[in-house]
């Protein structure tokens, strides 16, 4: 009986510790999200509306690379557009039609970029596929890494979602 109680106690501590670690990671991820510290390189466009991108994120923890690169890729596609990359990739304009969209619809994007589960339909992760979590690694300083991640983003679906939510106007809007 005593052993059982000890076992249950250890189990609770372990679960609590894992949960706390997960919360810490989420907090870290959200802190990194707020800074949007990244650069993007276009690798190609395998199919219409699906971009392949290499995202270089500046992070304190390598374990955040996948999720942060996904957010950064979606952020760049919505607000910044993707620069041309020689002959392999043409300039991709931003989905946002207004330069103030991010602040105008702050509430929507706060929820959209929240670090929740992938199956949440309102979440950015639905539109991103991480092909290779760490392709490049560069230590910039104490707890500061530049991590390269290869992702594909379904821009056609992302655009549709933002149009349905009236975040951006569709091509046929007004007609």
């Amino acid at each position, binding site marked *: 009986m005593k052993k059982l109680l000890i076992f249950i106690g250890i189990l609770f501590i372990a679960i609590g510790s894992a949960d706390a670690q997960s919360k810490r990671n989420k907090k870290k991820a959200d802190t990194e999200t707020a800074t949007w510290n990244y650069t993007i390189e276009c690798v190609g*466009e395998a*199919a*219409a*509306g699906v971009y392949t991108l290499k995202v270089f994120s500046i992070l304190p923890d390598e374990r955040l690379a996948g999720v942060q690169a996904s957010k950064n890729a979606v952020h760049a596609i919505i607000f910044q557009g993707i620069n041309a990359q*020689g*002959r*392999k*990739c*043409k*300039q*991709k*304009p931003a989905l946002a*039609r207004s330069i103030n969209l991010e602040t105008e619809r702050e509430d929507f994007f706060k929820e959209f970029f929240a670090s929740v589960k992938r199956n949440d339909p309102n979440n950015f992760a639905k539109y991103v596929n991480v092909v290779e979590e760490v392709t490049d690694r560069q230590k910039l300083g104490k707890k500061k890494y530049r991590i390269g991640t290869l992702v594909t983003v379904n*821009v*056609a679906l992302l655009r549709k979602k933002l149009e349905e939510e009236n975040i951006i*106007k*569709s*091509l*046929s809007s*007004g*007609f």
Partner: protein
Amino acid sequence: MKNQINKLHLIVLLLFVSISYSQAKKPTLMVVPADNWCFNNGYSESYDNQGVVKDIPSYRVALQRDTDLDLVITMINGMLSQRDFDAKNLKSQLDKIESAGAEEAMRSSKYGGAEVAESPIDALKKVAKADIILKLGWTLNTTPMGEKSVTFILKALDSYTGKQIAQASGTGAPDGFSPLPVLLEEAVVSYIDAFLAELQTAFERWFEKGRECAIGIRVWDDWDYDLESEDFGDDELGFLIENWLEENTVGAAYTTMDAEATMMNFEQVRIPMTYEKNGKVRGLDARRWAKGLSSYLKEMGIENKLTTVGLGEVKLYLGSK
């Protein structure tokens, strides 16, 4: 209670704005091969324009002989369809012209007078009624090493004005293995997003500043008056027409290109995207808009005939039908 009434007013207003904004006429699009692409590939025909013979592109021959053209047009049409724009099929429109005999190049007034020449391309534009023509072309480049690349160009021309409203062009990465259709597919995929973004900017400009068209006023030789006559109001007829334009264009925007006793030409005339009839908001085109001017002149006792050239150019002949 007053607060509730205000809210109700606001809801009705928003509903009206939403309805009116969604009633604008959706522009129709049609993809055709670019003129120089047709000429370079030998897809042209001769056309006799009132004694002057000139070469014009032959879309039918191009479609019959070039399978890659059909592939690219189908791809672009598919991508437009994904963005809620159904493009008119070039081949179907050409068939329509043949069956309807719409290629007839000459039209004339009921009682004689001006004749308006129309090329087969104009006839196509009129039958297809495409507001925007997408012209595409490409050239295949081969390096000494045998690598191939495609230089691709896609332009959107506003049928109303002939002005270019969007474009995408460039050369793809050299490839030693892929056949031409694959290179073309890659080119379309690479350029289409930027191209459609430019097109959207043009649409937004239409809503903001009005759709651009041109209008010409002509006077029949046998009419007793002209545009300098002061018998129709407190000013010369030409100025009365300009006053009407000022009141019926978006931001009073129009440019008087010519103003003579027997003719006037206006360009960059910005017309609204919608108009209201019987309480309903409908899409407005150049012809419908010019009908307003025609009615205004009729109210002054001036018989007139309204004709259209293409979609965005209208001509009013004063003096008789």
